[in-house]
């Protein structure tokens, strides 16, 4: 393969402490990720599939550094991975206007001092790239629809032009028609900006639509990996088969 690895995950183990119920009982540790190995290649869209509770989000949080309590290695070529969350209703600050939300990542950028004009120009560029118009900049999040909010969330993540974007179930809370539009947007951004995307979803159909590779995860272990077409045609493990059946594919 000619392409580089942007993220290399080697033998990643994550434990969660279960809060003790009484002072007498001991803290229980839950083993969430059990030795995950995964490579993300430059410029690809990698799909991470699995049910809720299988450790998908934990993996994402470990990559972006929101969870530092792990063993194993995460080697990143760029340190600028940004994340888009599932629920567009809680990921935008309700007391701020869209323009402010988009400008904030640049105002707090430690690597570069942005002037007001530069920020304005970038905000205008991004609002166009995410398929919204400039008159949206003066609105508050609760004046937007779910799909528009998710576009803004993606826009916020893109402001500092990251090389890697992690999208954690970005379309699961949306209507099917809106899902299709957001997927299309992600694909366009992927092409236009050459961003590598780690796309997390429980829906194998959605992953098939936009991903170059798919990793199927269950109980903290990656059970299967490959190109979606191959994996869906000849699923090796039973769990993948089960997922395919419930998605109405097989």
């Amino acid at each position, binding site marked *: 393969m000619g392409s580089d690895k942007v993220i290399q995950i080697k033998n990643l183990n994550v434990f969660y402490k279960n809060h003790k119920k009484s002072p007498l009982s001991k803290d229980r540790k839950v083993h969430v990720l059990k030795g995950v190995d995964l490579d993300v290649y430059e410029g690809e869209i990698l799909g991470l599939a699995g*049910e*809720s*509770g299988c450790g998908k989000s934990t993996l994402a949080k470990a990559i972006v550094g929101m969870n530092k309590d792990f063993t194993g290695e995460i080697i990143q070529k760029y340190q600028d991975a940004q994340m888009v969350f599932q629920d567009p209703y809680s990921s935008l600050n309700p007391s701020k206007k869209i323009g402010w939300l988009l400008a904030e990542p640049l105002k707090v950028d430690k690597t570069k001092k942005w002037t007001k004009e530069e920020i304005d120009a970038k905000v205008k560029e991004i609002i166009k790239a995410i398929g919204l118009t400039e008159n949206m900049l003066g609105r508050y999040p609760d004046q937007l*629809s*779910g799909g528009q909010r998710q576009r803004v969330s993606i826009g916020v993540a893109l402001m500092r032009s990251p090389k890697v974007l992690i999208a954690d179930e970005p379309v699961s809370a949306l*209507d*099917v*028609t*809106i*899902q*299709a539009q957001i997927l299309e947007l992600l694909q366009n951004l992927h092409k236009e900006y050459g961003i590598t995307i780690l796309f997390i979803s*429980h*829906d*194998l*159909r*959605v992953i*098939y*639509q936009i991903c170059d590779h798919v990793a199927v995860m269950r109980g903290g272990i990656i059970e299967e990996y490959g190109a979606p*077409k191959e994996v*869906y*045609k000849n699923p090796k493990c039973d769990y993948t088969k*089960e*997922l395919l*059946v*419930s*998605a*109405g*594919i097989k």
Partner: protein
Amino acid sequence: MEIILDVTDLHIEFHDHDKPETVVEDFDLMLEKGEIVGIVGESGSGKSMSALAIAGLLKRHALTKNGRIMFDGHDLLTCDRDILRSYQGDEISMIFQEPMTSLNPVKKIGWQVEESLRIHHKDMDKKERKRRAIEMMTSVGLREPEKVYNMYPHELSGGMRQRIMIAAAMIGEPKILIADEPTTALDVTIQAQIVELLRKLNKEKGTAIIFISHDLSLIRQLCQRVIVMQAGNIVETGKVEDIFRAPQMAYTRKLIAAIPQIDL
């Protein structure tokens, strides 16, 4: 076939803004006994509003409802509240999208499943209620119903909670079950299980189901007939297979196109 529900010209209008806003216009629905009908549309298309009106749950000040909803010889829009209340939860039941918020967090599962018996069958004794609840919980596919009976909602997964909601809705053996996006908040695998469960209950108990979803592919799995709604209007209606084979309206085609296609 026997027609158990006949909705004609249902018209719902909100008055809470300067201009009156029509959310449902000329909604018609004839439901046969034991049939599964799907209503599909995006959020804001009026599908949930129509369902809430049928279930008699639309109660707001700034609202007008017109038309007729005939059930069991009564017009549910104009009949006495007592009559409506005697149907609610017993003859007509409803389940909602969020299994997390539709259950009361401080009440035990068993208590919540039995609630409708307590209201509509006051003469039933405690033992019989529990027997019926356990039986219902078994038939919605809960393992160890005796144990779950004494648990609280937060101890259950999303899929199990939705099964509990279905058990609570079905315990009075209703004629009509309205399911408003019952699988949207769930994982695909669990979605498939819930759809399978609804199909099974429909077959075994003969309950007619109105299944509301934004996902045509789910409707295709479960329903015989579908109503496509957009902006408060019915744009197309017919057999599910016909609509998939030859959609008449551009909007229906858009909904079909939105289903992720997989060609292996």
